[in-house]
């Protein structure tokens, strides 16, 4: 039983779009002039060598960068036709609609049930919480493994299970977009595969943007890929963006080809 994410109002062709976006930490420009369009309900991967601003770029979508006091942004991120960085926009609401899964699983020190229910509860969920928890855990492919121990601590699960728990709690608040920052890099290969399968299932209902340093993973999983690189000032910029199989077989930019064939990075 799949349940759609928020039925999208059809303003905007893309799920989310960055227009001439630059992100700074005080004077240091971490990300430079990015123009990137993300297709709805597809998996888009962001790849590139380390330090080229992939995570910063990802966090720019849901204003998570702002948790660092010195961070600020220039340019626009358009979501439903509005600039997410508009001073009149509430970042709390932005983050509810654009969820995030982190590199290292970070469940709350609460029970498994509470982990999933908490976000929905504070956002005023009116329906049956039990049903929501079960639904979210099923969608995260975790239900069978935890259905008998819902009141045990979230920490009692393995790394891969914890990550799926984090995914479950993210989808419990019904976002439109799920950002994933190297979600499998802290996991063993078997758990990684499970996460990748999960991503493909989730893409039926949500738009997924995933940052990964693992090119093969990007090739396996994503529909679109964006390649970022770093210039001499350590600022990240978008080199090329397109459907995954095109980018990997017939890259348009020589730098992309160099990276893919392993000449650097």
């Amino acid at each position, binding site marked *: 039983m799949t349940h759609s994410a928020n039925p999208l109002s059809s303003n905007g062709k893309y799920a989310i779009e960055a227009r001439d976006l630059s992100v700074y930490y005080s004077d240091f420009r971490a990300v430079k002039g990015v123009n990137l369009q993300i297709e709805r309900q597809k998996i888009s991967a962001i790849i590139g060598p380390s330090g080229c601003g992939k995570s910063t770029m990802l966090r720019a979508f849901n204003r*998570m960068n702002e948790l660092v006091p010195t961070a600020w942004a220039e340019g626009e991120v358009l979501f439903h036709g509005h600039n997410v960085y508009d001073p009149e926009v509430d970042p709390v609401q932005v983050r509810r609609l654009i969820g995030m899964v982190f590199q290292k699983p970070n469940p709350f020190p609460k029970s498994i049930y509470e982990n999933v229910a908490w976000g929905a509860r504070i956002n005023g969920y009116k329906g049956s919480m039990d049903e929501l928890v079960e639904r979210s855990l099923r969608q995260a492919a975790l239900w069978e493994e935890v259905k008998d121990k819902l009141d045990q601590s979230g920490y009692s699960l393995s790394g891969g299970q914890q990550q799926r728990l984090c995914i479950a709690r993210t989808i419990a608040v019904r976002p439109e977009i799920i950002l994933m920052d190297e979600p499998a890099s802290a996991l063993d290969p078997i758990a990684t595969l499970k996460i990748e399968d999960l991503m493909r299932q989730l893409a039926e209902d949500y738009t997924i943007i995933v940052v990964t340093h693992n090119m093969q993973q990007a090739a396996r999983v994503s529909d679109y890929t964006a390649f970022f690189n770093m210039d001499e000032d350590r600022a990240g910029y978008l080199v090329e963006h397109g459907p995954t199989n095109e980018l990997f077989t017939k890259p348009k930019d020589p730098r992309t080809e160099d990276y893919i064939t392993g000449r650097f990075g």
Partner: protein
Amino acid sequence: MQNEATMATSKAALRADAGADVRADVRLALRKRRRPHETVIHGLLFLCGAVSILTTLGIAFGLVQESLSFFTRELWEDANKRLVVEVDAHAGTLQLSSGGLDLEPGAVIRIDDEKMRIVQMESEVLTVERGFQGTEAATHQAGTGLFVSDRVSLIEFFTGTKWNPQIGQFGIWPLVVSTLRTSTIAVLVAMPLGLSVAIYLSEYASSRARSILKPVLEVLSGIPTVVYGYFALMFMTQLLRSLLGADTVQIYNTASAGIVIGILILPLVSSMSEDALSAVPRSLREGAYAMGATKWETAVKVVVPAALSGIAAAFIVSISRAIGETMIVAIAAGAGPNFTLNPFNAAETMTGHIVRISGGDLSYDSIDYNSIFAIGLVLFLMTLGLNVVSQRIVRRFREVYE
């Protein structure tokens, strides 16, 4: 050929010898050498560390020994009875005047220097065992007074509600109740305020706000308690009196002492809580924000519960500190034990009592001298118990995150 072989063998032999020499040299050079002064220093430093054990033993020894004296000391209470008829050293019965204290078989009594034990009683005629506890049986004149043994029993100590040394009443409850009352008021003031300050400092404050607040808290924690005592008497009491009326609030009362103790322990609560809150990993906060939670919701519903054991430890340590506080109550809470539940009355606490008694003329081995050690022992056990509990909690807390 033979020469060559011999040469080879001798060369080998030579080489072996040379090798042995070198090895012996090396071995000599690397051999462990004895460094007596290192051992001496090690020993001296160990003794330095052991001094702390001596201190604890000293505290335990001093408190326990004097408390034992307190409980085993002989107190004699005038029974308000007199011998009606003279008795000689052999008489087995006594005839007493009527009235006075009630006596029971088994009780120990004293007439002059002789102790006796009551075997049987029939109205005013006592059958006694003479020369009890090694005292000498002697003749006693008619009209001599009788004294009853009135040792301070543990039961009386722990359940009595009056402390009146002159008439032999040694119930510790007035002091304990007063101590608990001031400490409760102190914690009621310090915990909410301290926790709020800690949450503010760790989740909200800009570095400028922090640079003002932290020094203020440090100054507050460095002010000597006697200065707080002055403040309690000269300001807090006046404030309470003007707010609630001079009839409700006595000049010496436990409420103003309690509030000021709360101010004293506020920095302690706030710094321990802040440490606990800061120890919560940032990733937890990020997880909450990413789900569309506000800063307040994250702080209160995710961070504080995660730091709960550290905050609980802060709570317990602050109680312990409040219980042991002396000067503020000595100055502002009143002199004289008073079993009351009204915080606006004067009531001496355990610590205040100890200070008052030892500040006066105190002869060693008097009952007053012993009594302060008994109270001190109770105090010590209370604070020690609380501190041990809080350390256990902190240790368990650390396990969760490491």
